[in-house]
């Protein structure tokens, strides 16, 4: 070991110097970052810049050269980044309030511009957040409450994206998408909504009860009508005979002993000798 060192001291040192030199003059750029080479504060080259639709493996990622000590390398995220907007209140045109939570997705497409204007992606995110906030408020404030709820579909989000994109271009960023993550009622409106919902339920309950009663009545009436039709069809064949038949039934019920469950008491019936029943009583 020692002899190795002693024999090839110069070679070792040379190798070390070369190794260190190599390490200092090469950079490894991975697929998910872009590298801006800066010389005395001035960007001179970009490695692995964002290219739309470039397939991974065909990009500029890999090993690159730089002049040690003179050139610094700033690495910038190449991935889709997120700006999260703090929840804020939006007032719709019909004076209703809504707490809106939105996010934007962006990527750095012009790293040189970004290095000059913001420096880091965190700074870009920081700068974009208030812009997103004001754009959202401004754009959603032009709409009715109902359309705020379904703002996802409308042109609102696209408008917001365009407005934000215009601002983001200053930072070399491209806004890909803006979405409303949440749209909630603020505290007061929430209580009002609960009251409204409860009132609605009470109305519904009453309606359901009334509908039930209505249906019951209809069912009964229909049955009565059907029964009447059955009677009429049957009895209508001979009204005179029905009158007699029914009278006989009626006498039985009214003057008879009744059923075992509700017996009739005995009565005294006073018959006139003229009674038809007694016709043959007088003469054969």
């Amino acid at each position, binding site marked *: *070991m020692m002899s190795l060192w002693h024999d090839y001291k110069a070679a070792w040192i040379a190798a070390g110097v070369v190794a260190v030199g190599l390490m200092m003059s090469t950079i490894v750029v991975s697929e998910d970052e872009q590298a801006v080479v800066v010389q005395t504060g001035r960007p001179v080259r970009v490695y692995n810049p964002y290219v739309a639709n470039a397939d991974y493996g065909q990009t500029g990622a890999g090993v690159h050269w730089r002049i040690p000590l003179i050139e610094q390398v700033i690495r910038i995220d190449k991935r889709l980044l997120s700006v999260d907007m703090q929840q804020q209140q939006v007032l719709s045109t019909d004076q209703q309030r809504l707490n809106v939570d939105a996010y934007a997705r962006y990527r750095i497409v012009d790293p040189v511009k970004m290095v000059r204007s913001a420096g880091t992606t965190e700074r870009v995110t920081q700068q974009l957040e208030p812009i997103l906030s004001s754009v959202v408020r401004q754009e959603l404030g032009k709409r009715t409450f109902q359309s705020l709820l379904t703002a996802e579909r409308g042109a609102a989000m696209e408008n917001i994206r365009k407005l934000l994109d215009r601002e983001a271009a200053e930072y070399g960023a491209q806004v890909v998408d803006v979405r409303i993550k949440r749209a909630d009622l603020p505290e007061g409106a929430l209580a009002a909504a609960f009251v409204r919902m409860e009132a609605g339920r009470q109305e519904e309950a009453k309606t359901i009860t009334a509908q039930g009663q209505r249906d019951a009545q209809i069912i009964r009436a229909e049955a009565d009508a059907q029964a009447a039709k059955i009677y009429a069809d049957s009895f209508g064949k001979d009204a005179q005979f029905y009158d007699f038949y029914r009278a006989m039934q009626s006498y039985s019920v009214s003057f008879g002993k009744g059923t075992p469950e509700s017996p009739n008491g005995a009565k005294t019936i006073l018959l006139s000798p003229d009674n038809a029943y007694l016709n043959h009583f007088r003469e054969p």
Partner: protein
Amino acid sequence: MAGRNSPWGGGGDDGRGEDGSGGEGSDGADASGGQPEEPQSETPERKGPRNPWLPSGDGTPPRRSASIEDIFRGRGEQRRTGGGGGGPRMPGGFPNLPRRPDGKSWLPLGIGAAVLVVLGFSSVHMLGPKEQGVVTTLGKYSRTVDSGVSVTLPWPIEQVKVVDTSSFKVVMIPDNENEKLMLTSDKSLVDLSYLVRWNIKGLKDYTFRLADPDETVQEVAEAAMRASIAQVSLGQALSGAGRAQVEQDVGERMQRILDFYRSGIAIQGVEIKKADPPAKTKGAFDNVNVAQQEAERDRSQARAAAQQVIARAQGEATAFDKVYEEYKLAPDVTKRRMYYETMERVLSDNDTVVGEKGANTVLPLPPMQRRAPVAAPGDISVSAPSASDSAGAQ
């Protein structure tokens, strides 16, 4: 050096082997070292003289004479022993002393072995059945390897990032028991909790495209769910069919957004676990249920009554029809028969008085207890006020 080497016999040999380039010179040094060593270990008094500066200098240099290289070597060793000489002063440190020279010879071997192990581990990769790996060569994407054993260039040239791509990951929203209220199209609120199952369909995109894929899934899920719920009414959101529709809608919407991001993520399913009215309005919703049950009860009672009415009508009508058929065969006789049978029954069940026309018969008024015949069955009587009217029946 020699003194330290010898107690470890084999170790010393290994050391020499390592130092192979030293050749003869080192052999000589060892041979010379062998002698001072024994007295050293057996007679501690000689430790004194074995002060770093003296004994080693005494023992070795005279023997060596051959080459300048050897002299240098000797000096080198001297220096080393000198450095280590601090050890013997402290008896506690003594046992440590022999290890060092060993380390000197073992160290490169150890390093070599470690390097080999690292190289081996970093160039052979075992991937589980559900895993895939992204291989990058010096940061640049090179290929995707599937499950099984694969070989790459060792670290740091090639690196493999292994990810479970097939297993479904599950995101619960919300991830606690709190109420999560969402606005429906009729400005009502629904308390919703749901889960999203997803896996990776494009490992390349998943690895490089998004800054935080997992968080992205969650945010996209929230945005999509709100958007879908805002399009249905509360009733639909609470009903089973409406829920299924929302689930499907959210899944498609999420997939569209994630594909637009080129995230390499596949949504496998959205499942609404709970869709309830807000807790504060629960009572009102329960009342609706009660009302529904009551209404249903009303309806079924009416239906039962209707059945009874119709059945009775059918029964009576049929009875009449049967009698009427008989009557048609012999109208006069049948009628008379029925009349007499009925009268017979009626009159035999009651007390009958035949009063002469114009006779001034005085009848006692019955007490007003007509509907309580059980009290005094025999005595109560009802007068038929216009018995003569019954003649009209004929």
